[in-house]
């Protein structure tokens, strides 16, 4: 073959080789097409494990029951038993720490009117369950104070405190 053809050919082969080398070094060994084939399957297999390692923050009411059994026993008798503890008290675990831990990681309780109004703002939507929940007008019903000043969220049916 003539020289002016051979030289660019060597350069091209060199580039191809370089690309393959970079690919070999950069792409993880477990990167492949998996079960779903060429259209859907391309991925790095180890990533599945990465997602499984994400920290669980909401532990559920059974976890709370472990220490606060008396609170659990009282709320379970009320209509508010359907609400998880952590919906108002905040998740037991956090990026900062776990509850309870040696650092006494404190939970931040949501006592705002907004929290109660999520359900107890009356909306007349009869094709949803919302219309069946009793509500108040937040502009007229003691607008300046927290609901928990008068109502006990752990025993809402017992009247005012």
């Amino acid at each position, binding site marked *: 073959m003539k020289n002016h053809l051979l030289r660019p050919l060597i350069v091209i082969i060199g580039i191809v080789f370089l690309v393959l080398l970079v690919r070999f070094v950069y792409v993880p060994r477990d*990167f492949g*097409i*998996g*079960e*779903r*084939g060429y*259209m*859907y*399957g*391309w*991925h*790095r297999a180890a*990533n*599945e494990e*990465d*997602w*499984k*390692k*994400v*920290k*669980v*923050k*909401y532990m*559920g009411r059974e976890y709370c029951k472990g220490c606060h059994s008396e609170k659990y026993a009282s709320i379970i008798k009320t209509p508010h038993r*359907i*609400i*998880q503890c*952590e*919906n108002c008290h*905040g*998740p037991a675990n956090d*990026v900062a720490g776990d509850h309870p831990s040696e650092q006494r990681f404190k939970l931040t309780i949501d006592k705002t009117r*907004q929290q109660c*109004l*999520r*359900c107890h*703002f009356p*909306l*007349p*939507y*009869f*094709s*949803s*369950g*919302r219309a069946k*929940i009793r509500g108040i007008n*937040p502009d007229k019903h003691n607008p300046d104070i927290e609901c928990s000043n008068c109502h006990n969220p752990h025993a809402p049916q017992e009247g005012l405190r």
Partner: protein
Amino acid sequence: MITRRDFIKKAALSITGAALPFAVMEIIDPKKLSASVTQEKGVVRWVFLVDTYKCVGCGLCVKACKLENEVPYDATVTRTWVERYVVTRDGSVFADTPKGARDGFTTTKIDRNSAGFLDIKNGDIEKAFFVPKLCNQCENPPCVQVCPVGATYQTPDGVVLVDRTWCIGCGYCIMACPYGVRFYHPVYHTAEKCNFCYHRITKGLMPACVDACPFGARRIGNIKNSDDPVTKIIMNQRVAVLKEEYGTKPQVFYIGLSKEVK
């Protein structure tokens, strides 16, 4: 002139060729191959069931999801959200989801963005309801198909995940999703989506939104298990999926879906 040697050679070759079955020319489907190998060791395909009759729009699911999955709380992005639909007597449809319903619906006013708030009189409401939305974990996920780098994929149990180390943040998947479920994560600068709380369901826990829902409007199940209560409802009762015409085979099923819901 054909020699004896040539004749025997060619005859042997053509007999061998004719003896080969067509099966060897078949292109092997990796999924089929794997299915025949793995057999039945606890096959799982996660599906979701939403009962829109039970949803009251409290938004506790959205709050729990954002905290569980470390989605920035005050940013206007969320993995799951709740939509409110109000249909008036003159046939107009109004829908809103203020902050993705992170703080619930605590006003009768409909948020119409730049058009401002609209207060609909109670007497004008024909029907009104709430629809929780989340990733449909499609059987044919268009978001996975368009990814140019192989950063998003479907796990064997049907959940679509995003590889944060591999995602380049190009946003193709965000545009490809017909359900608008994906968004750009403001901290990681990668595509982000609901993954049914993959870290929880693989440990035997419920997703955070399912646990947080006080009314049982959200449920998760394994469609491959015929004894699963969620599977029984999907198989025996009237359920619908969103945007079936797209052919994505969504795996979030809705009870009480209405034609107004897009």
